[in-house]
């Protein structure tokens, strides 16, 4: 202790009497180095800060683009609109030169995520990479005018925090649904069997804690008949004509979320009326296709929309999933007055107003005819059942077609030709986007 004090006081004494006076020179030299380092610290700090802000922008851009993959629009332009590019939504206030890396935003099909690759581009993910040229204020003195920082974000279209859904399934149960579908993944299944199997797969993809699902059918049935999910009765339903049918005649099961016991439950809840109607209750064969009054589904779509509007809870996304062969042909005596002609166009208009109200309308054409003279017979000018089903979907990505193996069938940009896998795909496109590691393949 005493030693260090005495050595310090000796140093201080030497400093006080030091005569060489080189401090100014040393400081003058070292100040150049100090200022240079300070300059580098500020430049690099600034560049890092720009990179962080750029990363936030590309994350937002990738998520916005991934969301658009399921919406069927142009994910690339949506991603650009949310990027840091000039006059985009996350543009920088400062005057930095920001560019999209060449070839980005890039649509990708990430096989490892298990999500389906949908839409015209066959994608389930998007990668956004942007670059900013950050000017160097101090380092330019030593010949480094700027450095380029890069930020990359990868987003998948499915697997994020789900949006609460209010789903209404509208299934065709006309007589044609009793014919066999040899292309169905269930051997020997009739069309209605295959459709119900698809519904069960769809229910497995949804989240019961937040998603509610109802079931409607056409032709309408007499009220208060629980035949479709009643385990006791084998009675077939009495069909109501389209003429005087109301909402309750179309609805089989109202909005319910008891189809699985919990979000983690793998199997469906056999006690749920919805599951029983889809032949998953272990008793009975579920909804049966009786028919006899022709096909007409414009009112079914309108009632589905008004039911969804009244049952939707805060923040819910309304979804209509229509399955039909699309060939509307209700005969005069079975139709509401004034609705006899242009039955297919009525359906397109009903779906159009549902879409305008924000509902996502999925349309599954099941063996829809592409002949404009042999289907949609009440429509003038002629329109094919296939075109009607295409027109019903909110956007091309929400249109599916199962031609049951027929060559030259109704074309859809979604590459599925089997009904159960179509329902699985629909369920997956209803999931939310999420960010992925950039190394995802």
């Amino acid at each position, binding site marked *: 202790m005493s030693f260090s004090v005495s050595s310090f006081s000796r140093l201080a004494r030497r400093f006080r009497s*030091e005569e060489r006076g080189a*401090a100014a020179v040393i400081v003058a030299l070292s100040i150049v180095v100090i200022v240079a380092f*300070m300059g580098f610290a500020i430049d690099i*700090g*600034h560049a890092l800060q720009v990179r962080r802000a750029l990363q936030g*922008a590309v994350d937002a851009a990738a*998520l916005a683009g991934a969301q658009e993959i399921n919406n069927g629009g142009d994910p690339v332009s949506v991603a650009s609109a949310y990027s840091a590019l000039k006059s985009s939504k996350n543009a920088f*206030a400062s005057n930095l030169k920001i560019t999209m890396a060449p070839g980005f935003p890039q649509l990708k099909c990430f096989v490892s995520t298990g999500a389906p690759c949908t839409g015209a581009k066959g994608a389930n993910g998007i990668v956004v990479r942007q670059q900013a040229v950050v000017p160097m204020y101090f380092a330019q003195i030593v010949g480094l005018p700027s450095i380029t920082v890069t930020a990359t974000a990868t987003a998948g279209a499915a697997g994020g*925090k789900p949006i609460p859904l209010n789903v209404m399934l509208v299934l065709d149960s006309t007589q044609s649904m009793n014919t066999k579908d040899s292309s169905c993944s269930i051997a020997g299944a009739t069309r209605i069997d295959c459709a119900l199997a698809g519904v069960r797969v769809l229910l497995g993809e949804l989240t019961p804690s937040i998603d509610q699902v109802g079931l409607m059918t056409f032709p309408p049935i007499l009220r208060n008949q629980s035949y479709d999910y009643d385990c006791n009765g084998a009675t077939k339903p009495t069909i109501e004509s389209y003429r005087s049918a109301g909402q309750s005649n179309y609805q089989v099961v109202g909005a319910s979320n008891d189809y699985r016991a919990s979000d983690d439950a793998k199997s469906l809840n056999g006690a749920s009326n919805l599951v029983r109607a889809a032949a998953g209750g272990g008793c009975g064969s579920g909804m049966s296709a009786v028919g006899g009054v022709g096909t007409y589904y414009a009112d079914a779509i309108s009632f589905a929309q008004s039911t969804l509007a009244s049952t939707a809870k*805060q923040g819910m996304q309304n979804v209509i999933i229509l399955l039909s062969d699309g060939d509307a042909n209700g005969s005069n005596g079975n139709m509401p007055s004034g609705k006899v002609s242009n039955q297919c166009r009525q359906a397109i208009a009903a779906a159009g107003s549902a879409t305008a109200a924000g509902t996502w309308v999925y349309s599954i054409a099941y063996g829809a005819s592409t002949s404009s003279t042999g289907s949609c017979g009440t429509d003038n000018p002629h329109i094919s059942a296939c075109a009607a089903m295409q027109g019903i979907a909110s956007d091309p990505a929400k249109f599916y077609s199962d031609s049951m193996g027929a060559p030259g069938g109704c074309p859809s940009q979604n590459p599925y030709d089997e009904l159960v896998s179509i329902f699985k795909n629909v369920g997956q496109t209803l999931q939310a986007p999420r960010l992925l590691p950039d190394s995802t393949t």
Partner: protein
Amino acid sequence: MRASLNGRGARASLKALKNCDGASAVEFVLVLPLLLLALFGIIKFGIVLNNDLELSDGTRASARVIAISRSSSTPWTDAMSAFRASTPNLNQSTAKIRVLVNNAACASDADCKTALAAAAGLPAQISVSYPCDLDIVGIQLVKDCTLQSQTTERVE
């Protein structure tokens, strides 16, 4: 006599000038303010850059929360707590946070909830301004220094 006195005085002052005792200390005192200025500058800039990074991070986190809060009944509260969680070193009370859902400002759970319910697929923006202090030993380098950060996300 005057001359001799003068001569003696000049010699004395010349001698005093020639005496180099303590030159180092004097020079050190002269350059010390410069060094201190640099030192405090580095510290202040470091703090401001750190604040700015945290601000960007907090803005981004709260924008993400708003984007996924369409079904939440407390979107505003959730966004604010996400911001606070990401910015532990900021003085929260001086941060001015603005939430814009589809270009309309909302500042309460009820307002944001109503705005978000109709905003699926539309932009939601968080912009935050935070005062920064670049006052170095009494010299204000930047007048009314404010840090700004904003992120726009698409409501899911």
